[in-house]
């Protein structure tokens, strides 16, 4: 049997997935990636992944959005085009708050999505070979590195004996 570059293990639930991840780490297999249909609690910690810095990006750009949104309105309504609206003063802070809030959310959201796309090297014209269509559907998959033929599917199978898997290939 020829050696494959990847060995993929399929699950239909998160509990056996977590058990399998722990066991594979114990056996010192290299886990390339784990793909799940929804976020699995505790998976990041088990894989000892570093914490994502997306929240920091969100905070910085949210603050930037707040300052720009507020500053733009302040400039428009006091310097550039002062208008009397409902007898309110030109620099009417309460009426600026909703727009400032929206700018904060908009800047933070767009910056976080952009940062995520840049970080994971996703471009609009990037194409993928569908490794298995179920991956983008409802199965949980662990991808194990087998570039140097260091392990075999049989090996993995015996490691994961007793854990409920759908398929190993």
């Amino acid at each position, binding site marked *: 049997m020829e050696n494959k570059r990847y060995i993929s293990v399929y699950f239909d639930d998160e509990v056996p997935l977590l058990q399998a991840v722990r066991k594979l780490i114990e056996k010192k297999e290299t886990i390339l990636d784990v793909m799940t249909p929804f976020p699995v*609690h505790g998976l990041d910690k088990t894989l000892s992944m570093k914490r994502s810095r997306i*929240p920091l990006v969100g905070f910085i750009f949210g603050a930037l959005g707040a300052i720009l949104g507020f500053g733009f309105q302040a400039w428009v309504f006091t310097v550039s085009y002062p208008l009397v609206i*409902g007898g309110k003063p030109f620099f009417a802070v*309460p009426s600026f708050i909703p727009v400032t809030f929206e700018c904060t959310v908009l800047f933070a959201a767009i910056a976080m999505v952009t940062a995520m796309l840049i970080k994971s090297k996703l471009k609009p014209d990037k194409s993928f070979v569908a490794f298995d269509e179920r991956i983008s559907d409802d199965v949980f998959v662990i991808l194990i590195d087998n570039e140097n033929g260091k392990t075999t599917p049989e090996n993995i199978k015996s490691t994961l004996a007793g854990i409920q898997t759908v398929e190993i290939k």
Partner: protein
Amino acid sequence: MDEQFKFKKLYRNILLMIMTGGLLFSLAAIIIFKPGASRIWANVLLNNQYFLGIALGAAFFLAVHRIAWSGWHTVLQRLPESMTTYLPVAFILMLLMYFGMHHVYHWSSFEGYDAVLEGKKAWLNVPFFFIRLVFYFIGWIALTWLMKKNSSALMNKSDITFHNRRKIFAGLFLVFFAITVSTSSWDWIMSLDAHWYSTIFGWYVFIGMFVTSLSFIILLVWFLKRAGYLKYIRPDHVHDLSILLFSFSIFWTYLWFSQYLLIWYSHIPEETTYFIRRIENFKVIFFINPFLNFIIPFFALISLRSKRNLDWVAIVASILLIGHWIDYYQMIMPASAGGQSVIGLLEVSMTVFYTAIFIFVVFKSLSKGPLVVKNDPFLEESLNYES
């Protein structure tokens, strides 16, 4: 797992001492400084409403988690449950308002003709006020009692039907609570400014209640962990409590600001009086309110690490408890006691008195059962919870 909270003699004596101290200082303040009757009764109303809010928020916490079949809160559900046992005490204390309502509710003693009050007479009259008061309290007490009884039945008999039945009680409570929390806040707070109304007011008061209640749960967890209990409440549970505290503080600000913005924009005299009175005579209180209840929790709880640090969250929770007391103060005092209200010895000692009663009732009820529920199908999930 059979942990039992012991209501030690020491705690009991300290609480009783604080209680008598608070009462004596309040009486002394009344005798020495001779505040007007409306200021005294406004204080009673303020503390009634504040601690009732903590108890009701706890019942809401339980109901909303049960109806969603949430698993994570199972280890700590005895804490809010014991907080709801304050409701009968709140009922008695609220009935005391019968003796002082004429001093704070101007509509109740108004004689002569007033077109606005005449129009609201069908709702704002003394007999109906007390009929509603009794109705609210009987509903809240009965439904929380049923919820509590059902939980203890599940603990003792380990029958799954009790678990399934919880959802029904939670649903009944939520429906009753959703309506009565609004109407009770109109009755007890909004009617202080009898000419004024705001349609968002019920929501605003309700979210304030929930925030104080979450803060109190966090402080209770902090205290019990310090005293050596609740070893299995991990940073993951604290994290979720902090997320709720953080998000509902923001939601409170949203409602506070919505009410302000709409009234400020439309600039109708009968609506703006509410804010003019508060901003002109209570400037510090009015502006410190969003600062304590929004700016501080927002920046203090925004990062992940601070949400998981119980000591830090407990500090923020204490600030929020003070902040929401001030929030109620600026709702109640300017309308009832008016110009003579300051935060003096009377306010502080009466709040201390009520706090001691509240903590006493909670500890008493907490010591009657195990600290962690037994036989709950969600217990295992909650113990292994990871956020």
